[in-house]
């Protein structure tokens, strides 16, 4: 098959990326870990068939009796069970899907807000820029987790579901970073000749922003977003650990650890109940941060040709 001339640069680029990834064992490891998690998330209904109307509710095993203590790993429960005989394997598998769902929702929202506001601030400048930047200053003046915790506490006062409050609060602490990033990128490219050329040929502001500026800023957004995947899950897990998050018995890694916290006093006796979900979190965050570094190496012009 003859590949048209037009696609040659793209093919060359893909080959370059693949070679870069192949040369670095850490990038390869990151890609493999993330790929494994994506497969788990997609095939969760097959890997662990749901047993109730809400697949994120972890089923408990009545054959083990209603004793409180976790049961060790067995053929029926490869990861063992935790409090009230909730199946850890099920929890970790569906927890993966849950982590992706939260991270995707949060990152889609923060990136969208960041693109719109960052673009407006950077392109038009002036008073709008000043107001938006001072607003991001204020939000960034708080350590993220603490502001999120405050918003969750306040929203539950007016009977919001905790999980919705958590999502909103993580979006609230996430958007200023993207807004600033995109604003900086817009400032970098907006005085380039090709923008001037586009304007001279009569392109509208919207067209210049989305057709000419955005494609030039998107790489840094992709890098930061991939690093953020782990960050969002870490923040959610920290909130869950404080009891602010998914309800008890939910397939949320942080919540499973929170539910198993009483068994830590047994030392290593019930190790599986808190170690296994913990390892899932660590691997997930690790995978995304390695992948983010790998993406930086291939996408960021400052790093790539070294």
């Amino acid at each position, binding site marked *: 098959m003859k590949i048209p001339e037009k696609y040659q640069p793209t093919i060359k680029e893909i080959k370059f990326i693949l070679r870069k990834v192949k040369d670095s064992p850490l990038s390869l490891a990151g890609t493999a870990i993330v790929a494994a998690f994506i497969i788990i998330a997609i095939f969760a209904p097959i890997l662990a068939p749901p047993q109730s109307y809400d697949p994120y509710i972890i089923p408990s095993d009545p054959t083990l009796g209603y004793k409180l203590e976790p049961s060790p790993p067995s053929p029926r429960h490869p990861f063992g069970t935790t409090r009230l005989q909730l199946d850890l394997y099920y929890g970790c598998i569906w927890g993966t899907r849950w982590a992706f769902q939260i991270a995707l929702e949060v990152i889609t929202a923060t990136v969208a807000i960041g693109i719109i506001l960052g673009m407006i601030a950077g392109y038009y400048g002036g008073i709008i820029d000043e107001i938006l930047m001072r607003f991001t200053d*204020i939000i960034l003046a708080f*350590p993220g987790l*603490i502001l999120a*915790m405050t918003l969750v*506490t306040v929203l*539950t006062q007016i009977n919001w579901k905790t999980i919705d409050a958590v999502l909103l609060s993580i979006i609230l602490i996430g958007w200023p970073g993207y807004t600033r990033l995109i604003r900086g990128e817009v400032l970098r490219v907006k005085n380039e000749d090709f923008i001037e050329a586009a304007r001279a040929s009569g392109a509208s502001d919207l067209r210049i922003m989305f057709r000419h500026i955005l494609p030039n800023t998107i790489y840094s957004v992709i890098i930061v977003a991939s690093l953020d995947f782990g960050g969002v899950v870490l923040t959610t897990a920290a909130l869950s*650990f404080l009891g602010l998050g998914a309800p008890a018995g939910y397939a949320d890694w942080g919540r499973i*650890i929170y539910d198993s916290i009483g068994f830590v006093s047994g030392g*290593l006796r019930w190790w599986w109940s808190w170690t296994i979900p*913990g390892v899932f979190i660590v691997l997930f965050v690790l995978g995304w941060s390695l992948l983010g570094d790998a993406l930086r190496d291939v996408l960021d012009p400052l790093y790539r040709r070294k």
Partner: protein
Amino acid sequence: MGLKEYIIRRIILLIPVALGVVVLIFALLQVVPPERRVILYLTGNPREMKPETIRAYIHQYGLDQPVWIQFAIWLDQLIHGNFGFSEYFGEPVLDGLLARAPATIEIVLYAAPIIILVGIWAGINAAVHRDKPFDHASRVLSVLGTSMPSFFFGILLSAIFIATLKWTGPGRLTFRLDAQLSTLRGLGQWHDYTKLLTIDALLNGRIDYFIDALKHLVLPVTVLVFINTATLVRVARSSMLEALSKTYIIAARAKGLSQKEVIYKHARRNALIPVVTLSGLIVGGMLTGLIITETVFLFPGIGHWAATAAQHFDVPVVAAYAMFSAVIFVLANLIVDVLYAYIDPRIRLG
């Protein structure tokens, strides 16, 4: 521009941010209905008050007035140190904060120097021994440090060292010693000079208390160090690598200086300049880390206090803690900026 003018300008720039922090928290609190919000102004427990008393307070603090008047009254209350009443802890918010601050200060006092020393030492050495085993080891550890949730690391340590090996326990002191403390105070054999247990123990000549308090600090400090050092190592490493590639290093080598002199006298000093800016970030990391760490080890500091309040949806405490940490964070960044300008004249002159 002189250093003095630079500092003054930075402080003036801070005022809108500090005010913004208060406005943001005020705006968030607006979603809570006035009958619940009034607790942010009270100094006594609303549970023990009659409904008409509460209504009188709502009127007194202007909760039936337009928003800007409410804000002015609230700001006035904050300036006078009234942060409201904590229903869960049954005490005014400020009292709670002040009572728990020493425990936190004690952790930070031990953790901060270790973070800075270890972080810079490891970063510089990783750069000097680039691509050698030390570099790889510090990289693996710093990747783990950023990927490991602090609560999970804390749980791991407490399962091993507290529950299994029984080397130490939760809290600030062993229960027996803690219980004796009030007796000792009553007998006049214990004076609270600083409220920092390790220092007070030494001043009171109680080695047993000193060792016990120190043992209780080891695990929380370890967690804080582990999760906060990683970024520092990374930045110190890349900054040192950059410094080592500068022409003045080649000049120093050409002069025939020893490797040691080149690294520690010429390269390291310049490499440390960007590292200073990171200290602000570390303060932020500490404020967050303390919430988790103190909760895991049941260490009675302000982080544990805020986390417990959040679990029981005690709004005044959480709001106060948020404002408190934002102010500390902003002040830390101010100090960092000033230090930076002091070390590097290019900043204030540029």
